[in-house]
């Protein structure tokens, strides 16, 4: 039996339970999603885009799912050790895949008209608003994991910024994974930023210390209307037992400016897909990310930027540091369609293999059908600079410290992309802690051995 069959069976037997604990807007897509999953299945290692992450193996275990929305006793503030404390944010929690209603900022703290909260609940309160966007960016046909998420997702986070509204304070969503048995969650994020609006969202992923396995499936849809500015930071600091399969879909209106920065500080297996489409001219996208992986950890990133219209600008930079037997993969696809003239698309993927067993695969793919464009790509896989190491050691810096400084320096330009000073400072500290092996869940990094 293939891994997908248990989900198909589960869906058909529990359809009413799933729907009963969600909202009509979300339920409306389930049957179609399941039909797609049944015909297409989950991606396999034979799929070109999934050659480096065995999705079937990740989905094969017999995970528990909380379809009946049983209340999980938890105080998120207790579990939540998100290391971005100096950052004053509007803070929300999603525990497993349920929005946590007991701890959220008072509505009065939000500018007028802004809606933030449980996706399930907001889809009940504002069905027309949510229906206008839900499932409209996430292409289920493209990827079985997105179809599966759509069939099972019951809740998550919804954020709506009306036209012209600027939310000064960053909004933070903390995802917490917790369970006593192997557990799967299907989270859904929907973000709508109106014309000329501005906001910043930081999503942090944590898992608790238990030894059970987690599979976190997350689909995030982001709609950024004309002239809007939006930052999306995704920071994973989970456990080695955690597998995360996440897809982010971005639609951008004319003259909009979007920053997406995906940071993997500590994880188990992470597969991230970033799809972005320019719907209006003169829009800008900065898509970047970094990852620090060691031991048996793995990080696999797939990006797809669709320059559907002319005069748009995308800038992509992903950097990974791999140690021990860690594995990494980056595949970056850029499509410049017919007529998308004056496109500027730049892609960079740089990787540091700090141990002889670490493996990195990188693959730039540019498909260009317009003739007046500027596009470039660059991919490198290298080791620590031996000359720099010796230079530092000759000044009395120990080898471990010198390696740490070099690895830290390597990731610095991705941190520099952060447009939130408090987060930038904090990230520097976190990355340094990570390299020193001082992050809570990290026990064996290079620097501390």
């Amino acid at each position, binding site marked *: 039996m293939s891994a997908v069959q248990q989900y198909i069976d589960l869906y058909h037997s529990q359809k009413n339970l799933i729907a009963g604990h969600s909202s009509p807007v979300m339920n409306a897509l389930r049957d179609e999603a399941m039909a797609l999953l049944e015909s297409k299945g989950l991606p396999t290692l034979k799929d070109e885009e999934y050659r480096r992450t065995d999705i079937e193996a990740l989905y094969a275990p017999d995970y528990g799912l909380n379809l009946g929305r049983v209340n999980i006793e938890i105080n998120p503030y207790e579990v939540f050790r998100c290391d971005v404390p100096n950052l004053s944010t509007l803070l929300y929690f999603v525990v497993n895949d349920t929005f946590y209603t007991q701890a959220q900022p008072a509505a009065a703290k939000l500018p007028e008209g802004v809606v933030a909260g449980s996706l399930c609940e907001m889809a009940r309160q504002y069905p027309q608003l949510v229906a206008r966007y839900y499932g409209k960016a996430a292409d289920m046909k493209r990827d079985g994991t997105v179809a599966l998420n759509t069939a099972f997702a019951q809740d998550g986070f919804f954020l709506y910024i009306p036209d012209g509204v600027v939310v000064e304070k960053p909004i933070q969503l903390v995802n917490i994974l917790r369970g006593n048995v192997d557990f799967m969650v299907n989270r859904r994020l929907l973000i709508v930023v109106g014309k000329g609006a501005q906001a910043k969202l930081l999503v942090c992923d944590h898992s608790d210390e238990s030894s059970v396995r987690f599979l976190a499936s997350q689909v995030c849809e982001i709609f950024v209307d004309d002239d809007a500015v939006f930052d999306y930071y995704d920071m994973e600091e989970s456990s080695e037992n955690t597998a995360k399969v996440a897809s982010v879909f971005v639609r951008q209106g004319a003259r909009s400016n979007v920053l997406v920065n995906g940071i993997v500080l500590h994880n188990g297996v992470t597969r991230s897909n970033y799809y972005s489409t320019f719907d209006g001219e003169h829009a800008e996208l900065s898509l970047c990310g970094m990852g620090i992986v060691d031991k048996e950890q793995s990080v696999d990133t797939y990006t797809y930027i669709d320059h559907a219209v002319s005069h748009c600008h995308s800038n992509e930079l992903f950097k990974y540091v791999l140690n021990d037997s860690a594995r990494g993969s980056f595949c970056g696809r850029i499509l410049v369609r017919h007529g998308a003239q004056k496109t500027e698309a730049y892609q960079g993927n740089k990787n540091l293999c700090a141990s002889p067993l670490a493996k990195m695969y990188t693959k730039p793919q540019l498909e260009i059908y317009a003739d007046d464009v500027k596009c470039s790509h660059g991919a490198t896989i290298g080791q620590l*600079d*031996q*000359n*720099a190491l*010796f*230079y*530092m*050691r*000759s*000044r*009395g*810096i*120990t*080898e471990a*410290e010198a390696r740490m*400084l*070099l690895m*830290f*320096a*390597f990731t*610095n*330009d991705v941190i520099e992309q952060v447009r939130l000073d408090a987060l930038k400072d904090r990230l520097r500290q976190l990355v340094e802690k990570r390299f020193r092996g001082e992050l809570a869940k990290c026990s064996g990094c290079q620097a501390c051995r």
Partner: protein
Amino acid sequence: MLKITDLHASINGKEILKGIDLVVKPGEVHAIMGPNGSGKSTLSAVLTGNPAYEVTRGSVEFYGKDLLALSPEDRSHEGLFLSFQYPVEIPGVSMVNFMRTAVNEQRKYRGLEPLSATDFLKLMREKRAIVELDNKLASRSVNEGFSGGEKKRNEIFQMAMLEPRLSILDETDSGLDIDALRIVAGGVNKLKSEKNATIVITHYQRLLDYIAPDFVHVLYKGRIVKSGGPELALELEERGYDWIKKELGEI
């Protein structure tokens, strides 16, 4: 302070140093000259512990300790300093961070508390003045985008920060215009004392006009073939190396 005895070293199996003997005492300035490929830079690399080189025979004592048994960082902690011929650019590591780490590692080795941020910046300011190093350079990444002269000034600045007992200046004059040369040499002279010593590796007499050596050694084919006083450098400048080769019976 330094006693090199019958030092042999090779890189990738090729022997470069073929028996070096040299004694350096506190307060002395030694110049090591020689034609290209004679082993001058190899000697500095071996003394500072560059892992690319293999010592095949001989010993080096530094204040009674077996220098060759120490890691590069501990050689630095013991007071050895190399001003690199080609200082390395390290993008993303700021000069301040680099220098603070180096200074505090040295203090740790000597059982001292790390310097406070204020004291450290004060020290930076003080030492920067010695080689007229711009504050802007100090806040940049290590050597990144520095001009040739700035890189060499930065080397002497680091030397000033670490206060070594023995400094090796490897071709510090190469790539310097006359003003930069004066500043760099001035810096070295300011740092000179009765307690520390300097080994100047150079091609030309030029630098020795500014940094007066007590002893001059000619390195040729991996051996010191001639030693003398400052007048030897002048003679080399005038006559080249051929007369030495002749003396050795090679020509």
